[in-house]
């Protein structure tokens, strides 16, 4: 009898011991079974595949509202939808925008200034020239490039913020694709909150955004895809709460020119008109501001490691970043220290150079 009792005790110890040592934060009261329940919906929109997950009693209603909002924003923003505001402004050259579109244009112009033109919504004619919009790829001649470059430059847009009127210069076309998913993910977080959800995580085609912590108080674990991964897999894992994690990298879409054998990837530097050929394979931005994270992931990718690190140093109160360079070496900014794990070595970038 005594023996059996000891056995039970040891077993009990072993079982509870499983979770010991795991860092679990508990800012919330003990969650009920219902709080831990989760549901997911899958949405195909904005030319990509989306997974939305929400926890708790309000989850079903929240997911329904979120899906509706995503479809509404797609109709508003997509260059592939003829009636969208973006298609309209590109066709007519001038348009009074809805509040949502105006908010995105305003943020885009702000980012254009901040990033010295690396983030530019008027890069669309260049994307067309290279065939990235149609997948009929084409390496342009110098003449074609210089002609098209004359149409590029967000400084030549006129935007009346009060009247929400956007006017393009001759030959210009815009695309909000570099910021739209960040705006959308932020909007989904708002829909979740309005419905009474306090925990949820979504991925809009690899643009991840999470609300709060998980119901048990632990952080969300977000994997960062290994760039150019023919072998597949995850390069690193970052633990976050209440943040967007958005990645840009040329490995996602590219083409190989049959004549020269050169590879051209889909992120085009608005300064040169050429696809980026820098020292980074991917940039992941972690920020509470989804639009900022989306816009900066592309911009910092274009900048290259050194310039990008300097940009973070002067804007470190707004975001943190994870860089993977062309040798698959991983760099994380100081604010993410201890939050990123990887099988490879991690170099921490500090504020002081």
């Amino acid at each position, binding site marked *: 009898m005594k*023996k059996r009792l*000891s*056995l039970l005790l*040891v*077993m009990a110890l*072993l079982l509870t011991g*499983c979770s010991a040592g*795991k860092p679990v934060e508990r800012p919330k009261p003990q969650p009920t079974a219902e709080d831990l329940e989760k549901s997911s*919906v*899958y949405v*195909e929109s904005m030319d*990509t*595949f989306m*997974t939305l*997950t929400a926890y708790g009693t309000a989850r079903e209603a929240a997911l329904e509202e979120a899906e509706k909002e995503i479809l509404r924003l797609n109709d508003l923003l997509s260059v592939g939808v003829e009636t969208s505001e973006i298609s309209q402004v590109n066709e007519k050259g001038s348009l009074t925008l809805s509040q949502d579109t105006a908010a995105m244009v305003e943020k885009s112009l702000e980012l254009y200034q901040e990033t010295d033109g690396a983030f530019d919504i008027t890069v669309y004619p260049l994307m067309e020239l290279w065939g990235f919009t149609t997948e009929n790829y084409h390496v342009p001649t110098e003449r074609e490039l210089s002609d098209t470059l004359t149409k590029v430059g967000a400084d030549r847009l006129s935007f009346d913020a009060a009247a929400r009127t956007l006017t393009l210069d001759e030959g210009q076309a815009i695309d909000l694709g570099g910021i739209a998913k960040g705006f959308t993910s932020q909007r989904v977080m708002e829909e979740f909150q309005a419905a009474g959800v306090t925990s949820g*995580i*979504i*991925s809009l085609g*690899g*643009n*991840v955004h*999470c609300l709060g912590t*998980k119901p048990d108080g632990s952080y*969300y*674990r*977000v*994997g*960062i*895809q290994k760039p150019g*991964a*023919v*072998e*597949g*897999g*995850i390069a690193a*894992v970052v633990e976050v709460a209440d943040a967007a*994690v*958005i*990645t840009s*990298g040329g490995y*996602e879409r590219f083409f190989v020119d049959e004549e020269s054998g050169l590879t051209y990837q889909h992120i085009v530097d608005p300064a040169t008109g050429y696809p980026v050929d820098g020292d980074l394979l*991917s940039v*992941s931005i972690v920020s509470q501001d989804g639009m900022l994270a989306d816009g900066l992931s592309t911009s910092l990718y274009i900048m290259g490691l050194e310039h990008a690190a300097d940009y973070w140093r002067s804007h470190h109160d707004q975001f943190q970043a994870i860089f993977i360079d062309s040798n698959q070496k991983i760099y994380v900014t100081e604010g993410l220290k201890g939050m990123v794990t990887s099988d490879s070595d991690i170099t921490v970038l500090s504020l002081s150079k």
Partner: protein
Amino acid sequence: MKASIRKNDILLIAGLLVVAGVLALVLTLSRRDGRMVVIRYGSEVRGQYALSETLIVPIENGQGGENILHIEKGVVWMEEANCPDKLCVQQGKIKYAGESIICLPNAVVVEISGNDELALDGVTN
């Protein structure tokens, strides 16, 4: 008297250690077995396989879309697909719970599900 108690103690401890070992093994194995490969068309689950299995799964979506999935020793990859872009094949291998392979043209999602402590809640790319 004293000696016999000590001997029983040792036996008891040894016994407990064996039980603990077996228990730890069972827990480790069952945790691994808990991870599943889930195949979905949109929101609809069309198949589930243990990640620890080794198999080749042909996936037909009923609308002409065909993919061939490999599951081998805890690693999953799309071997072939008749979609135009082949992004699903290029994506390579996945192994963590929470990772997925998506074939957008054929509307096929392959996801590793599970709740081990290393499971991912999302993947950014």
